């Protein structure tokens, strides 16, 4: 029983690490410019994008996921919300941002992504 309990606790630790502590690799803005961020199967692909600080940037999104949850794209800190029609590329122009992390997500926050703005403030 002790082993099962330890396995259970290890599983909890793994959940915490995997979903909250681990920092996934970010894609560069250039990579995203060549290929729109795909909204499919419950995720943004890629979901983590690095953007240079103090420069305007454009992110393209294409939704191929039919779920209506995926339809709305929200950047809460930037007061941006946009409807993503199915199978159409939508460009979102971001203003020049100060370094930091900015999340984007669907209306229900089940699809989540993050822009990491890097550079001198």
């Amino acid at each position, binding site marked *: *029983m002790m082993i*099962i*309990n330890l396995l*259970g606790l290890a*599983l*909890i630790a793994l*959940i*915490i690490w*995997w*979903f*909250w502590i*681990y920092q*996934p690799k970010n894609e560069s803005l250039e990579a995203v410019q060549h*290929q*729109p961020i795909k909204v*499919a*199967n*419950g*995720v*943004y*692909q890629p*979901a983590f994008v690095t953007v240079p600080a103090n420069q305007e940037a454009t992110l*393209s999104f*294409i939704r191929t996921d*039919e*779920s*209506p*949850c995926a339809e*709305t794209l*929200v950047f*809460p800190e*930037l*007061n*941006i*919300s*946009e*409807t993503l*029609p*199915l*199978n*159409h*590329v*939508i*460009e*979102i*122009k971001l203003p020049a941002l100060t370094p930091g992390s900015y999340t984007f997500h669907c*209306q*229900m*926050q*089940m*699809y*989540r992504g993050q822009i990491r703005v890097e550079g001198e403030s």
Partner: protein
Amino acid sequence: MTHELNLPNQPVPSQKGTGHHEPERHETEHKAQQQNNQTTLMIEGAGCVSCVGKIEGALKQVPGVQSANMNFADRTVLVEGAVSPDQLIQAVQKAGYQAKASANNGVDTLEEKEEEDFKYYKRLLRDMAIALSLGIPLMAYGLITGEMSVNTPTERVVWLIVGLLTLSVMIFSGKHFYTGAWKSFKNHSANMDTLIALGTGTAWLYSMVVVLFPEIMPSVARHVYFEATAMIIGLINLGLALELKARGRTSEAIKRLIGLQPKTARVVRNGQEIDIPIEDVVIGDNVRVRPGEKISVDGVVIEGHTAIDESMLTGEPIPVEKQLGDEVIAGTINKTGSLIFEATRVGKDTALAHIINMVKHAQNSKPPIGRLADVISTYFVPVIMIIAVLSALAWLNFGPEPSLAFAIVSATTVLIIACPCALGLATPMSVMVGVGKAAEAGVLIRNGEALQTASKITAMVLDKTGTITLGEPKVTDIVLTSDESKDTVLQLAASLESGSEHPLALAITESAKEKQLDLLTVDTFNTIAGHGVEATITGKQLLFGNEKLMISKHIEIAAFVDQAQSLAAEAKTPMYFAVDGKLSAIIAVADPIKEDSIAAIQRLQANGVRVVMLTGDNRNTAKAVAEKVGITEFYAEVLPEDKTQKVQALQMEGEIVGMTGDGINDAPALAMANVGFAIGTGTDVAIESADITLMRGSLHGLADAIAISKATLSNIKQNLFGAFVYNAAGVPIAAGILYPVFGVLMSPIIAGAAMAFSSVTVVSNANRLRFFKANKS
């Protein structure tokens, strides 16, 4: 008397920085517009990049095609060349694909969306039917016989077949859950798919272990849960389908707005009338509209006379007379006569397009009340996973036999019953319906924050001119105080006011026009803010303004103050006019009170809102108007900058202040107020910048806006409460908290049904708002 003349006609600045930022958006080219010999086709069936060359090649072989470039990302191809879309579509079909052309005017996008949604809906129902066709018989068998365990070799074989059938249901009907869960997991995120995949996956895996290796399980734990897996997949697909249907209804208001725009317009080109797609209409085109037809783009009437029904945009039920020079708005309906108008705004620049855009963005924004739910949503799924593990451990450690089976059931049920979607949907669905409902009533709410604040307004500040009154004053009296004739006084006064767009100035110039008086050249001109103007015309020194102006310029008016006051007591605005240092006349202008201002103000007061009137006008006029409309608290002779202070003073008293003005000279006070209301006509550019815009002039819009905001907030609270309580009660019950006392443990199937219908309940509750009616009594 304050004379706010010659203020620049500027748009209202952005309010408090809280406005919803409008992203620059491009729907990269496409969709099907045929313009300047370019056609964009939407391609179906192109599944790989190699299709691009094939499709482009097929199109380039069509005679007349100069180039064909396919955008694989959004499955569109842009073709240049004077070729009909039909020929192009045939070429694509010959190459083995499907293609269609559609107009990019928003309407088709909506139709496409509905089409896609319907396809998705049918697929969900199909998946549901397949899953339930296995799940229901299995569940019925379990309920009738009570035998769902593996004890004999025959049972092992039978259950193995059932297990494989369940696996095929999982692959066919539940594939999207597992794919989504896996992709999400790889992305270090978790969503509803994660919970469903884990829940159903655990139940199936456990059951398969029981079937394949029964000997490793205690005999009491050899129970299979294939029926739970199939039922959960079926019920959740059903829930998603019902949610999709209900969601469709939440956007009915925007659909109606988009549907207002006609698809074609009849333009007069080279003396001939031709019907062309709406997106081909350009600025300057002369557009013919016949009785019963919709106005296609914004414009100005150049021929004809008619009445136009603008109720769909402004909520104003009475058709508006239109004649030469009047503005017409896209989406409104020509009732009686035929007319030709010149297009002034087309495509995305029309007032209708702006309104649609604004409503869409407002519908996507969230009021602050949803923030807690947002924070919870962020951590929700991993927390539920942890609770499921803890629950399983608790059963294994402290539960009765078969503790393993109990542990599996409780973990599965916890995973399945938890519903992040109900929380996530609670706020946006209500905002979607509430903002749409407001738009139908002619009230444009800029964002969720404005919606929430409007529901709390305790004091409403109203500007007088143009808000309570029509804002179209007329000259009613010219009281001469010197030897000048009335015509001379009017001619001079009108000449110096000719450059102003202030309603009082317009009243004087209009009056001079009616009397066919020629306007004279103004030599020098100076505005004295809050006082009036001074000017030189044909060598005469002229002063025109309020009492303060006369006193500051040492003009003797003492003998005429009583006369001015008696005019003011009749709700007229008296203005002093002096020529060469001597008072020459008192010109009185009256601005009629809007027909329904009294009823609307009473309605606000009846709802407990403190109504305050501010005006730059003199005290007597202000008092007369306030008394007529039933306002007891008013401030007269308030300079534009002082209006802001009055708003601040009310806020210091603890009031949540709404400020209503015309959006031009009230801009600072509108920005200072907790909610700024601009009175628009549906064509104002200022609608983009006020917190709330009333598309018709009636002050009933204020009470409507507050009532709709209150109803929406109340709906959001019901949804949030329901979603919180559902999860807060459902998860512990699923974990087995009732078992020690009542000896019951929830079935995963019940959890699946509860989860599936929790989202539907939230969306359906939001839909109740569609039937909300603001009470005008």
